[in-house]
């Protein structure tokens, strides 16, 4: 048996308000009054309540991977490998840093020792100089010996320079001769090509070559 107020939109709205808990007291009273006398609407309200519970089965897939932030997901093996490499690099880097630091400290210590030794030597020399004053004759003699050594060094250097220049000049002459021969061959080839190898042309070529050679010698 159907409801005689099935087309009553106001009552339908009131029923929905009751179903969703939005009804005020007046609407609840109207629905209650109607349900008291309408079995079809009681059945419908019960059915809609059951339907709402069924609709609750469709839940958001909160655990879906798609609901995690987008972006490239690093595979576990890659992440593990990266972590291992990072740890390895970190260890190597730390040990390298420590050994470098130790080496620097040792070098600084050595430099300090050398510096101290130099200062001590300098002091000793100064003290020795103060104890043994140099006479004017000894100083003159020392200067003469120094001059002689400087002269000898200069003479030796002049000889070395001269020998070196001679070698360079000879080498340059050799190379110039080779270059000249190559140029002459090229000139001969060019002239042969241009003028031919017959008769007067060949003679003319030879004359030209002779002229060139003579001018080169001059």
């Amino acid at each position, binding site marked *: 048996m159907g409801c005689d107020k099935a087309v009553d939109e106001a009552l339908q709205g009131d029923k929905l308000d009751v179903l969703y808990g939005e009804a005020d007291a007046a609407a609840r009273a109207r629905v209650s009054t109607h349900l008291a006398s309408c079995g079809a609407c009681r059945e419908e309200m019960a059915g809609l309540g059951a339907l709402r519970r*069924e609709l609750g089965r469709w839940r958001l897939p909160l655990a879906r991977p798609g609901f995690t932030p987008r972006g490239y997901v690093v595979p576990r093996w890659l992440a593990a490998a990266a972590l291992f490499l990072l740890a390895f690099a970190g260890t190597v880097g730390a040990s390298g840093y420590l050994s470098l630091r130790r080496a620097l400290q040792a070098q600084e210590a050595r430099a300090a020792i050398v510096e101290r030794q130099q200062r001590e030597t300098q002091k000793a020399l100064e003290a020795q100089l103060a104890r043994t004053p140099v006479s004017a004759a000894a100083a003159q003699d020392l200067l003469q010996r120094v001059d002689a050594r400087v002269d000898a060094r200069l003479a030796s250097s002049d000889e070395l320079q001269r020998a070196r220049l001679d070698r360079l000049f000879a080498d340059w002459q050799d190379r110039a001769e080779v270059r000249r021969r190559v140029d002459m061959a090229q000139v001969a080839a060019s002239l042969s090509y241009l003028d031919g190898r017959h008769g007067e042309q060949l003679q003319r070529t030879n004359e030209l070559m002779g002229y060139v050679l003579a001018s080169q010698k001059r």
Partner: protein
Amino acid sequence: MGRSDEELVEACQAGEASAFDVLVARWEDRVRGAAYRFLSSDDEARDVAQETFLKAYRGLSGFKREARFSSWLYQIATNLCRDRLRRRKTRPQVSLEAIEESGPVIVETRPGAHERLVERDQAEAVRRAIHALPEEQREVVILKEYQELTFLEIAQALDVPVSTVKTRLYRGLVQLRQRLETEGVRREAPVPVPAP
């Protein structure tokens, strides 16, 4: 106690940009959830949520506080979802998630596996039944059942009278009952409404 949506909107309009971050944090999940229900695609739902907040941010200066901020957000999101659904009609797409949900992909062998599969099937049946509704009814059902908006908020979001919202919802619920009965989904036992 945090500031209300309206206070945050007012702060945004006064130039406090960080207030919008609070609004996003407050509403993003719900907007994305609604979009997921409309579109059945997490990727698209995420895009819609982003576009919704972008549009909201751009339009915030012109937002008049006649409607609630949440209604306005849902209005933007619903329109974006409608656009996407229209585009799908012209360019049919296959949602991998829908296939994943509908296909017999998982072979469960653990204890309670049968119950989980039954639940999964029933959830899928509900999803299919809702998506088989006409768009107008589907929107109202989703906004009411899953987003728990009031009738007034839905009316503001869809820019229709409250009476229209109720009519669409009633028709949608009736169709859903019929469809789920036809599909043979295990029914919850109706709790009889006692005659007063």
